[in-house]
């Protein structure tokens, strides 16, 4: 049972990281990233391939972060001037191109068979359940670091400019803010967090294949951000946890309805994800928490 809980918690943390990234890119900066699963895949594969080549885990993770930051910046550079829906199409197209590459460059990525046997970091220190708990600890630290990073960006003048650009880029640019540069940096900062998430994913599962990086990753992230309240990092954590609890809960559907076969149960879960996303948008588009706003202290109002 503890093993199962640990696994779910690590899973929640990885999703929360992806959600944090989307919360920066979309929540703060208003840039719709439908291709999250592509960036996530790049991070996972870079971390896995470098670790398998004998690079220490921390360096492998760093390489993954660098790779996603560069790619995110490039994608943003190409499309940041466009309206949100075009950005959505462009990022989705990027992710599909990544998927094609992963499936076809078998010599590098193992194609549809994926990469087995990714070395886990610090595997000599502990084993079994102890290792799982240690990995959970590492994941918590990573999440905490990324959360602080995202929160600092949000409350900084940088975050304020992002929100201004999101609301009205004409006004912001009239005030001398360079739209393109801010958007590219915001997208790259999100990419860095996705890089951390992808590395954790690779190291934890020690096996990756292209089916783990489908569009459902994007859907989870959007659900978490919308449920938590667009723009609020604390809300995002609550959102990510509740979404994952809901999704994990649907695993037990199969026990409730034994007449379904495994394939049907899996598709029913994905139907519920879709329905959940739509219901959130219709009934609770503002989420649990409000986004950060700089407020005057009491009595400070002149």
């Amino acid at each position: 049972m503890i093993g199962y809980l640990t696994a779910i918690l690590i899973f929640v943390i990885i999703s929360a990281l992806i959600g944090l990234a989307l919360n920066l890119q979309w929540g703060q900066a208003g840039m719709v990233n439908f291709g999250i699963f592509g960036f996530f895949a790049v991070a996972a594969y870079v971390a896995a391939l470098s670790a398998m080549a004998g690079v220490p885990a921390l360096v492998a993770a760093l390489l993954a972060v660098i790779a996603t930051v560069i790619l995110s910046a490039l994608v943003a550079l190409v499309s940041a001037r466009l309206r949100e829906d075009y950005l959505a199409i462009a990022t989705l197209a990027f992710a599909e191109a990544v998927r094609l590459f992963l499936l076809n460059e078998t010599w590098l990525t193992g194609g549809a068979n994926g990469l087995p046997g990714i070395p886990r970091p610090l595997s000599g220190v502990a084993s079994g359940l102890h290792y799982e708990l240690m990995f959970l600890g590492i994941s918590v630290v990573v999440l905490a670091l990324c959360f602080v990073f995202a929160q600092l960006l949000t409350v900084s003048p940088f975050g304020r400019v992002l929100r201004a650009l999101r609301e009205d880029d004409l006004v912001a640019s009239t005030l001398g803010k360079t739209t393109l540069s801010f958007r590219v940096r915001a997208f790259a900062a999100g990419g860095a967090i996705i890089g951390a998430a992808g590395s954790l994913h690779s190291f934890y599962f020690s096996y990756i294949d292209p089916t783990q990086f489908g569009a459902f990753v994007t859907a989870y992230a959007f659900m978490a951000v919308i449920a938590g309240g667009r723009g609020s990092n604390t809300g995002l954590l609550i959102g990510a946890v509740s979404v994952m609890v809901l999704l994990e809960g649907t695993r037990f559907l199969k026990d409730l309805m034994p007449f379904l076969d495994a394939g049907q149960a899996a598709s029913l879960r994905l139907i519920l994800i879709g329905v959940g996303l739509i219901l959130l948008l219709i009934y609770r588009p503002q989420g649990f928490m409000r986004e950060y706003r700089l407020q005057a202290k009491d009595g400070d109002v002149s």
Partner: protein
Amino acid sequence: MLQILLNGVVSGLLVALPAIALSLTYGVLNFPNFAIGSMITMGAYIALFFNVDIGVPLLLAAGLGAAGLATVALVTDRLVYKPLRNSDHVTLLVASMGVYFVLENVVRFLWGSDIRGYDIAVARPHRWMGMRVNNEQITIVIVALLAMVAVWFILMRTPLGRAMRAVSDNPDLAGVRGINRNYVIAAVWAISGVLAGFAGVLVGMDGVVDPLMGWNYILPVFAAVILGGIGNPLGAVVGALLIGVAEELSTLILPTTYRQAVAFLIIVFVLLLRPHGLFGKARISR
């Protein structure tokens, strides 16, 4: 060379039908319908159900598939998009992602994930001017052309079409002039459902029927719409044909597994160089 052109035109026509559907809903509702892929899949499966499981001839089954999908599109609009009518377009496009998940997995739930095919006789390809042409390709060309003529007629020669173009151009002005927006939206969803339904059957005839068939068409369809200019159905047809030919030509220099990457490259270049497409209005950058 002629053979490549022919294959390219045929695969372009396959892309053209869903591209028209996407372009119509994009123009009138002002959001990209990401569920178009799973609409293709669902149309193919409804027709497959009538054709294989019940034994209706394919032509009739295709009609039933198209009608069924038009119903699905109308129900989706009523349940999902209507409550969100006044939301911003990002909300709508995220919602369409949700619809994508629901539709594709309803298909998996009802019919499983196996690869299937229609009940059609396998025939030897015909020879014509030194090219190989098979029966499926002839059917695709005929059906796609008929559908396009029908859409053109509705858009350009009927009061409904005029209303659709008016709402697409300027919804507020159209409303002031007494055009019933809800009626136009319903008509657009029905037409888009019929087109996606027929497209599904044609795609299934050309290849196989499986739950991912529509997802694999998302990139070329979006590339066609962007290339042609958003909200311009005739532009979308030209875009689709160009992409079909470009994909076939790419097989000369690239491995065939990278065919879909052509659509990605086209999207990137169009967005970089001419984001409003070949025939679109310059209103999309922000």
